């Protein structure tokens, strides 16, 4: 029995380690391949050296330097940061405001509008992108940052999450604020929002990631390469001769770093978000 137990434990440990290697090796290969000369990537291919950077520290940032010289990476990064920040802040304010209305205000047709919003929840945004494009075209927004930002500012799921969250805030706190002469906007901005940090963190993180990773929509609505977000720029760079693996891996790494930071700090809100919503759109 004791022997048997130790054997299973050993098998589980070996399995865990092998799976860990299987899951992490592409990320490691991506990072270290950016840190060596192109010839070394091919020389090392298939040996353990594929997973080690160049022995000379002077090689480590060479491919980064070259790719920054060849392409306007700073601009693409700036575009992505602009789009993602605008989406994050806008999505928190707009969805929280709608959630606040649904949770605390008794207006006419509330049930109908809430039902409509829940119905919109099932429409797969990916399939209506052609007519969405026609709308943006008619609004004369093609090739503007608004075309990338506006459609991401409201999501039925996030309104729903804020509604659920605000319903749980006690009525007494709101009434106390009301007696002190605060109006609804004051209560929303100064009482409700500061109390809803977990919901804000969840919606903010999901919105940031959604915008940062957005690819097909910006590819459609942005025609001027100066306004490309990073994801679109990456596929463009990958199709621009001459293509060097170390430079491509450098740009892939640059695109991934902000997400690593976000996941490190906000991971717990992401899981909560999916569990609480019960619908779990990524």
């Amino acid at each position, binding site marked *: 029995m004791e022997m048997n137990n130790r054997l*299973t434990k050993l098998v589980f440990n070996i399995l865990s380690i092998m799976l860990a290697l299987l899951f992490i090796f592409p990320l490691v290969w991506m990072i270290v391949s950016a840190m060596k000369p192109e010839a070394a990537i*091919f020389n090392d291919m298939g040996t353990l050296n594929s997973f080690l950077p160049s022995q000379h520290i002077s090689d480590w940032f060479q491919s980064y330097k070259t790719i920054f010289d060849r392409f306007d990476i700073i601009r693409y990064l700036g575009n992505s940061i602009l789009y993602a920040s605008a989406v994050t802040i806008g999505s928190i304010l707009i969805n929280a405001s709608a959630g606040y209305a649904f949770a605390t205000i008794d207006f006419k047709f509330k049930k109908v509008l809430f039902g409509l919003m*829940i119905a919109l929840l099932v429409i797969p945004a990916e399939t209506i992108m052609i007519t969405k494009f*026609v709308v943006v075209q008619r609004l004369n927004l093609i090739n503007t940052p608004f075309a990338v930002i506006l459609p991401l500012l409201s999501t039925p799921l996030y*309104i729903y999450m804020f509604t659920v969250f605000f319903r749980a805030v006690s009525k007494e706190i709101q009434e106390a604020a009301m007696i002190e002469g605060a109006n609804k906007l004051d209560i929303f901005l100064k009482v409700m929002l500061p109390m809803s940090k977990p919901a804000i963190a969840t919606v903010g993180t999901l919105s940031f990631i959604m915008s940062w990773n957005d690819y097909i929509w910006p590819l459609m609505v942005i025609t001027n390469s100066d306004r490309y977000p990073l*994801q679109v720029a990456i596929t463009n760079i990958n199709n621009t001769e001459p293509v060097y693996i170390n430079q491509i891996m450098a740009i892939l790494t640059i*695109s991934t770093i902000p997400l690593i930071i976000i*996941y490190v700090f906000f991971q717990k809100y992401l899981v909560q978000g999916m569990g609480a919503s019960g619908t779990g759109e990524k």
Partner: protein
Amino acid sequence: MEINATARKKQLKENISGYLFLSPAFIILGLFLFIPTLMSIYYSLTDYYMLTPDKTSFIGLDNFKKLFNDPLMRQSILNIFKFVILIMPIQVGTALGLALLVNNQEKHTIIYKIAYFSPVVMSLVVVSILWLYLLNPSSGLINQVLMKMGFESQPFLSSPNQAMITIVFVSAWQGAGYQMLIFLAGLQNIPNEVYEAATIDGANRWEKFSKITLPMLKPTSILILTTTLIDAFKLIIQPMVMTQGGPLNSTLTPAYYIYRTGFTDRFVGYASAMTVIYGAIIISFTVIQRKIVGGDGDE
């Protein structure tokens, strides 16, 4: 009378503030979700061509008739069903397996978690390009390792037989870590006393797993299975970046075909008909999901 007027005034104020708080969200949802949906339904009955919108005419169900005889549409639907059927057990099974492994580890759990979760931090574009290089038939790392181990090198994405299954594995590899975290949260909700009681009753490892763990994970599993299903139907970035739908259309998916028809070729009318049919398929799966998971909507 006096009281009634005050109450009405108060209600009016409530209405106005309600609509004001709601309006930004509803303008956005209206413009970019509701109106495009209605437009898709309307345009599906027309021959709208993006470059000559003024010459649009009503053509009834012609787009739908054409659609049912379109070999590429049929191929793309077959492709997506292949993808969905393969990725469901592979990704969800992997996620559950990883969660169980992590849950049973006593030491270094954080290191395993980080390793399994690491693919999630990359965007789908990054993942697709990265694997494009790893899977290169001649110089890619995977084939170099296979050949060192004495296997033949594989064409992967450049073979009509292997391309879709390769995309399944890359997608499952990318998505499993996130679902592992949700399974882990589910596992940690199972009270320890249940296992202790079972140990006293003489249950072995397998009995504990099949009689306690699995049944108690049922809500989590249903949630994960259904979201995987619906997400899988939307597959587009991986084939777009890795294979452009090839070779021989073996990785062309409906979402990608809609994009090509409506955006690249500008046949908005025909693409809208595809949107209506394919959207209806996804929506029906979503509605079934909501029925199974339950408890959504207004109470």
